[in-house]
């Protein structure tokens, strides 16, 4: 890496300041500090830690399902248990892993990257975290509480999208569905609160000189993501209020026996559900926009196009929801419209992919663990997008919808793109958050083991869908020819589990024994790398002023600053 200018001196230490080591505190004091904190960094870390715990739990649920599905007519778990497993796995992964971990990173990074000291509303930030956390605990309490149909304790088993009228009292007696509804309702409130904070912080607290056109792309993407949250999560909140009214106040929103419409629930759910998956992927794009340039040693190619594409994706994502409903009988007009809208969204998405390619092109690529995960992301996101295009073709969806082809597609996005980019983000920002480097050697082992497992599972998962295997079935007939594929898929899960455990070990070990990171281990260019690692509570002793998109590049290259070209 270029070193003709030393990394900027710690601008948070005005000359002459004496520092001293604080005395060790009681555990109770430390806990109190974390429970009452309003510091965006601590809250960000709590979101991330919370999400990692649920990642392991939901991953374990997936392992149980894969064991059950390895053989036809298997009896490893009962039908009821399996149905709860896929419901809890999906609900947990979307609402209690995906949302918290991505908002955790946003919480941590956005103020630092815009030169602010905290979020706009620190107490709202804390409230949002705790109410989301409570939602997760409520969902899992259903295993113990719930007075379900099959005895004491039953987790929800209506699928993560809980179609009506299966969720009506008559088809889902007991309280398991209510735990689902309430847990997500609370988590939704938390998401809206955090999104509000991110938007207010981004618009109102940028440091001097940081016009919108000079913000890091990560901040732009979190701005778009948060805006999507307002218009996407709210419809789900509304639908869940309606569901609760149906179940307990005798209303008829989705009560098909009284003239209500099952399709209306689908519309409301997917008006949330489709933008939701963009809410999950846009932060992954945000990480890619920061990490790929640094390890290519080149500025991101096409910053204005990237902004426009991201905003475009946000807008178009609101118009494609009924591609989840191609088989519901909406009619050829609607099916045609939603096919077109879904295909159109591939254009700005492709623009982003090509811009990343152009960033790599002509660069000097360093294959750190972080970058390896980012490169995996690029290939895998390409494939995921292409299988998405196949599904956007409504007649293909008539065959492949609700089959394992769809499951393969969305796991390709969620695991192959989002989780890979999350791993990349961990290797990149863990040094900043903890002050120590993660082990690169363990990181590369993690990458290769996880990569093998990912491809074993999710490449081959497309095949059963093509051979007619629907999703959400606790078992299958032996005469369908699906067994060999299910065995291969299940074998990959073992590798992914191993890779994930290796990653957790890496984090724990490195936290205590990793090499000291210093403020800027990657020779990067955005403001978070100008603070010590980890940053002090106040982030910046003096609020910086910036003159370009890469303020630290300007400092390190005073002869050739970015400000000359913007």
């Amino acid at each position, binding site marked *: 890496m270029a070193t003709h200018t030393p990394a900027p001196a710690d601008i948070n230490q005005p000359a002459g300041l004496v520092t001293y080591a604080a005395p060790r505190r009681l555990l109770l004091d430390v806990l109190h500090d974390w429970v009452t904190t309003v510091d965006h960094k601590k809250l960000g870390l709590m979101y991330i830690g919370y999400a990692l715990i649920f990642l392991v739990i939901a991953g374990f649920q997936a392992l149980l399902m894969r064991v059950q599905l390895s053989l036809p007519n298997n009896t490893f778990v009962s039908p009821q248990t399996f149905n709860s497993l896929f419901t809890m796995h999906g609900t947990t992964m979307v609402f209690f892993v995906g949302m918290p971990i991505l908002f955790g990173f946003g919480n941590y990074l956005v103020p630092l990257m815009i030169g602010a000291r905290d979020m706009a509303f620190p107490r709202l930030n804390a409230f949002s975290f705790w109410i989301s956390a409570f939602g997760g605990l409520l969902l899992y309490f259903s295993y113990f509480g719930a007075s379900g149909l099959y005895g004491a304790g039953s987790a929800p088993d209506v699928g993560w999208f809980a179609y009506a009228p299966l969720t009506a009292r008559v088809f889902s007696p007991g309280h398991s569905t209510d735990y689902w509804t309430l847990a997500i309702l609370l988590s939704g409130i938390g998401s809206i609160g955090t999104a509000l904070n991110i938007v207010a912080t981004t618009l*109102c607290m940028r440091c001097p000189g940081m016009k919108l056109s000079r913000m890091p792309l990560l901040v732009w993407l979190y701005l778009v993501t948060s805006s999507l949250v307002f218009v996407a999560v709210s419809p789900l909140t509304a639908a869940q209020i*309606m569901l609760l*009214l149906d179940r307990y106040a005798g*209303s008829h929103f989705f009560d098909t026996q009284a*003239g209500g419409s099952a399709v209306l629930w689908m519309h409301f759910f997917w008006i949330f559900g489709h933008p939701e998956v963009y809410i999950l992927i846009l932060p992954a794009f945000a990480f890619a926009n920061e990490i790929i340039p640094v390890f290519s040693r080149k500025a991101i190619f096409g910053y204005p196009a990237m902004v426009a594409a991201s905003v475009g994706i946000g807008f178009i994502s609101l118009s494609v929801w009924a591609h989840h409903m191609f088989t519901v009988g909406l009619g050829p007009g609607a099916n045609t419209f939603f096919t077109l809208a879904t295909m159109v969204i591939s254009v700005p998405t492709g623009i982003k992919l090509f811009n990343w390619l152009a960033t790599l092109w002509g660069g000097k690529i360093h294959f750190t663990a972080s970058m390896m995960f980012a490169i995996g992301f690029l290939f895998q996101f390409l494939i995921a997008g292409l299988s998405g295009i196949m599904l956007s073709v409504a007649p293909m969806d008539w065959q492949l919808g609700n089959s394992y082809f769809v499951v393969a597609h969305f796991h390709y996005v969620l695991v192959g793109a989002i989780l890979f980019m999350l791993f990349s983000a961990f290797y990149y920002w863990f040094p900043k958050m903890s002050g120590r480097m993660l082990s690169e050697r363990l990181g590369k082992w993690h990458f290769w083991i996880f990569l093998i497992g990912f491809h074993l599972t999710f490449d081959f998962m497309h095949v059963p869908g093509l051979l007619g295997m629907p999703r959400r079935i606790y078992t299958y007939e032996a005469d369908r020819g699906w067994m060999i594929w299910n065995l291969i898929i299940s074998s990959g899960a073992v590798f992914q589990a191993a890779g994930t455990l290796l990653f957790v070990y890496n984090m724990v070990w490195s936290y205590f024994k990793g090499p000291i990171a210093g403020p800027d281990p990657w020779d990067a260019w955005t403001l978070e790398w100008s603070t010590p690692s980890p940053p002090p509570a106040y982030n910046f002793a003096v609020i910086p002023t910036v003159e370009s998109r890469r303020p630290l590049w300007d*400092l390190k290259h005073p002869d050739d600053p970015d400000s000359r070209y913007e």
Partner: protein
Amino acid sequence: MSQAAVIPQTIPWVLPSRGVVGMACLIIAESAIFTIFIVAYIYYLGKDTSGPTPRQVLDLPIFTTLCLLSSSLTVHLAVSALHRANRTLCSLWLAVTVLLGGIFLGGTAREWHKLIVRDGLTLQTNLFGTTFYSLVGLHATHVLVGLVMLSLALIFSLNGSMTAKHTGRLEVLSLYWHFVDAVWVVVFTVVYVLGR
């Protein structure tokens, strides 16, 4: 050395107010929730197989609507008064706002009483009942929350805690109140005008 820390702030640097942006975000989110309830109302119009229809039981709530809409004006006057440091006038206009909002809620309560007792329309009766009570009820809940906040503001104005330097915060609250009124315009149009 880090020039970043030393550049004097000669560039003018003005950013929007956090409160206004935060309230705008909340308004967008709440609008999305209301939109879904309004869509449900419109979707189910005319689909009832039994029970009272809108035309049979709904009367135009002109008076309460006028009260609510004029309360937008009065809250704006309260904000202006506070800006000019006229605490008495601010308290007066806040009190009128709360009164007008209270009249609206009272009118809604009377209307619901009539619908339930005389016309036999409840949430459970039919699709119209379900969508009417949930939509109007959601709005009324927002009015109630607004009234609570305005009453708090009134108390702070009366006891001297709220002064001219808090104008921004009162303005943010008034944005919420304007939003509640705007929603009523839409609900009124959809339920009482177009739907009947």
